[in-house]
């Protein structure tokens, strides 16, 4: 398929570019979704790209406390988002909260990062769901700021609801899963889903992780869940009983 230089926004999604294989395809409450190994979720019917927990400017937040982490986390995170946008050509981009690490983080975004955000927003709807780190609208982000978004039978929010909820996509928990095979342990960010609800991996370069076997996560699912671990070129689908707890 020929690719135009700048994304024609209402083009068909570039499904050929999908390298995630069959494991990247899931159904959530009957809706077909694609898992991107960069850590995002694409909803073909809505042409919507969903990401969670970008925690932009976490590095500079630490720097203010005397811990000068490399100041490249925001651009590394945004680079993933830009890559996915090029791959799927979404009409709408939704970030499920904690887009910014703290309330003043927007003011610390550098010129490169602002340019990347502006490029993303060009010709698209940008939706910023409120998170606990960024409860209020952030002028530097543009777009719309919403407490949550219910559309096409699915509910998109930051924090998963306390009860099992069909068709819910949330972030907040930063799920990771660990697989131990023959004396080696691999720990990766992952999507966690029981087919009814889905918890997204954190996209932020400096975002830590919570093991899917942790009570806070495992308790969310009514049925056995599966973890889709983020690999180099695709996601790997692992049954919950195969996921090892941390340590």
């Amino acid at each position, binding site marked *: 398929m020929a690719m135009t230089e700048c994304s024609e926004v209402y083009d068909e999604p570039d499904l050929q570019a999908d390298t995630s294989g069959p*494991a990247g*395809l*899931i*159904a959530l409450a009957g809706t077909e979704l694609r898992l991107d190994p960069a850590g995002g979720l694409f909803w073909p019917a809505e042409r919507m790209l969903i990401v969670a927990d970008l925690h932009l400017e976490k590095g*500079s937040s630490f*720097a*203010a406390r*005397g*811990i*000068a*982490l*490399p*100041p*490249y*986390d925001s*651009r*590394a995170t945004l680079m993933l988002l830009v890559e996915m946008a090029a791959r799927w050509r979404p009409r709408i981009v939704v970030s499920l909260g904690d887009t910014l690490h703290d309330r003043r983080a927007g003011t610390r975004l*550098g010129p490169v990062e602002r340019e990347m955000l502006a490029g993303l927003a060009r010709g698209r709807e940008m939706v910023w769901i409120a998170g606990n780190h960024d409860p209020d609208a952030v002028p530097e982000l543009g777009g719309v700021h919403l407490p949550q978004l219910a559309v096409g039978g699915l509910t998109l929010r930051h924090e998963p609801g306390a009860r099992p909820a069909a068709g819910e996509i949330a972030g907040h928990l930063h799920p990771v899963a660990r*697989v*131990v*095979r*023959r*004396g*080696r*342990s*691999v720990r*990766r960010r992952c999507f966690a889903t029981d*087919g009814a609800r889905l918890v997204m991996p954190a996209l932020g*370069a*400096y*975002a*830590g*992780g919570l093991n899917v076997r942790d009570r806070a996560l495992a308790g969310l699912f009514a049925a056995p869940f*599966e973890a889709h*671990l983020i*690999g*180099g*070129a695709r996601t*790997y*689908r*692992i*049954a919950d009983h*195969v996921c*090892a707890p*941390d*340590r």
Partner: protein
Amino acid sequence: MTVLDRQSAIDLPEPFRSWFAGRGWAPRAHQLALLERARLGRSVLLIAPTGAGKTLAGFLPTLVELAERPRKRNSPRPPGLHTLYISPLKALAVDVARNLERPAAEMELPIRIETRTGDTPASRRQRQRRDPPDILLTTPEQIALLLASADAPHLFGDLKRIVLDELHALANSKRGDLLSLGLARIRALAPEAQTVGLSATVADPDTLRRWLVPQRGEGEMGDLVIAEAGAAPELSMLDSAAHVPWAGHTARHSLSEIYALIAANTTTLLFVNTRMQAELLFQELWHINELNFPIALHHGSLDVSQRRRVEAAMGEGRLKAVVCTSSLDLGIDWGAVDLVVNVGAPKGSSRLMQRIGRANHRLDEPSRAVLVPANRFEVLECRAAMEAVRAGAQDGAVERTGALDVLAQHVLGMACAGPFAADALYEEVRSAEPYSALPRKDFDDVLAFDATGGYALRAYERFARIRQMKDGRWRVANPTVAQQYRLNVGTIVEATMLKVRLVGGKARYGGRVLGEVEEYFVETMSPGDTFVFAGEILEYRAIVEDTVLVVRSHAKEPKVPSYEGGKFPLSTFLAAGVRAMLADPSRWKSLPNQVRDWLEIQRRRSRLPGREDLLVETFPRGGRHYLVAYPFEGRLAHQTLGMLLTRRLERARLRPLGFVANDYALAIYGVSDLSLAVRQGRLDLGELFDADMLGDDLEAWLAEAALMKRTFRQCAIIAGLIERRFPGKEKNSRQVTMSTDLVYDVLRAHEPDHVLLRAARQDAATGLMDLRRLSGMLMRIRERIDHVALDRVSPLAVPVMLEIGREMVGGEAADALLAEAEDELVEEAMRGDDRVQ
């Protein structure tokens, strides 16, 4: 007494002469030599065997000077320290202080002697700053702390003498780097101070001599005094009647003979190389301990109080034997030890000599030691080590340049002491031996790192930790910086350790703490797995915060076999000795029959590894194909080589499955017939082993290597990028581990030349990956690969082949592992599940 001794004795002033005479002692020549050098104002390195009165020699000039100090009440004594003693071990500092107080008291010398360690109460530490003693005995970390404060000039300004104990053990490490920088500052504060280095025999004393004096670009050195050697050690190898195993490290076959040695001696020290081996040997000895000898266990993972109890019991002569690791290589003298047994391979001749020296501290009697090889290669290694010890040949020192992360810590400390000018500090730093060739760019990068992180993207100016003043000097930006520095000082970054707590039944609390294990060891265990620790087989139950909960197990054999804590690789020097012995059948006479037969059959069936060549064998076995190489460069270098070779074979579509490595050899296994591939010209071994693998292949591997991330984490902590964890204070050690990995990924992608990554790469070169040794080997064997295609496994290959399934398998990318977990289990996961097509 010889004429010379009497002549020398005249030099000793009163009351020392009477004190020596009162004990029937004559001062030794090297003790008087040090006194003489001190009078000439010279710094000096003293090389002396244990039991030669080394410490007294180091302090004699101090004691004499202080004794001669005017005793008039009203003449004020100088307010600062007179002598500083620095030891790598806290316990040694305390012990030396005790040994020093006795002569001082008996001669009624008006001297105040005090120690300062992490255990010293805060009130006394404060008082020591205000009102310093004459002699202070301490550790490198305390020196760094003292120097990073504004009262350092008051404390050190009058300093006359510095005594560095066990300098050979300190110099070649990051701890040594930090100490060398501290010494540079002390010499700036007290230019008249002389330094005495005390060391065991080393291959290259000149490096240590340069340590003692400021470097000005001419390779300046302190004087050298070599004490008369003690009696040569009586060294033998246990020629076990039993079958010598092909592989393994337990030496079980020699157990009853080891027990007989213990029975026949008063006190025996049994050295092994890893904590796991210590645990196993200890357990096995108790199984056969029919005479109920008091035998104890000592290694670095055991609870400190338990270690102290063992040391105390040893000091009181209550123990018959102690099984220990390098945890007792150094330390205070125990007169009662009359035999050292080294179980397993000696790994290096210097280490072995140090261990042998732990037996019998009387100079005129020989130390006695027995080597117990645990497998056939170790027989060769023991033989090579014995020859080295007899010839007094030491392992060559690895050339070391000062670490940049340590420098970053020091520079921040200097800012805490007071404002500094960059030019002056750079000159001062270069006067330290490890940093004498430090390029200005590295120094400036370190300075920029301390200030704002040193990133090309200058985003953090307003968060700077140190800032330039109007006059161009640097100072700390605020007082919290100094607090952070003090909490992070030191270069010992423990792997994240978890406490091991023995609980009963289902309890989650209470129980006794047995010691600590590295987190990564527990990482691969599941509840119910058993392992050996603290002399028992334990069952892993759960982890609660920073504690591993275990119960006693009734299992006969532990399920998780290897706990590698504290393994060190074969030294280059000893490896050359083993290679030389292998290549020369005329020297096999001294080997046990079984070992000789083994080598004879190897010579007939395959070939012997040459002194300079690299022997590579390829052969099929059990449906798989193997490539075994014999570089003899130690397991760290072999593991790195294994990683790189499997990557290359993968790329050549020769489908390797994995590899194992030991100290002598490397075995790669896979599905493709490698002999055939060589014959058909599809595989060129010269190309496979080409040193260019250290370029792109290495870079690609480093990107995801867990080893590299661990190395980076250490550098980040030492340099103060992230905070060290503290009991009770730290959030969660797992979060820290996690975040340094993320930081590594981001930094590597965006600023691969950052000073911290440079520091990590420098560590990797000598540390866990041993790149320097690997690259040396690859250069050596260029055009010298000796390939044999065999129809079956060779005798020499058996030991490393036996490691397959016993050791962790390397070479598989993390993603391949995930794919496997997915494939094998996908069916099970899908069962009764029709949500997903």
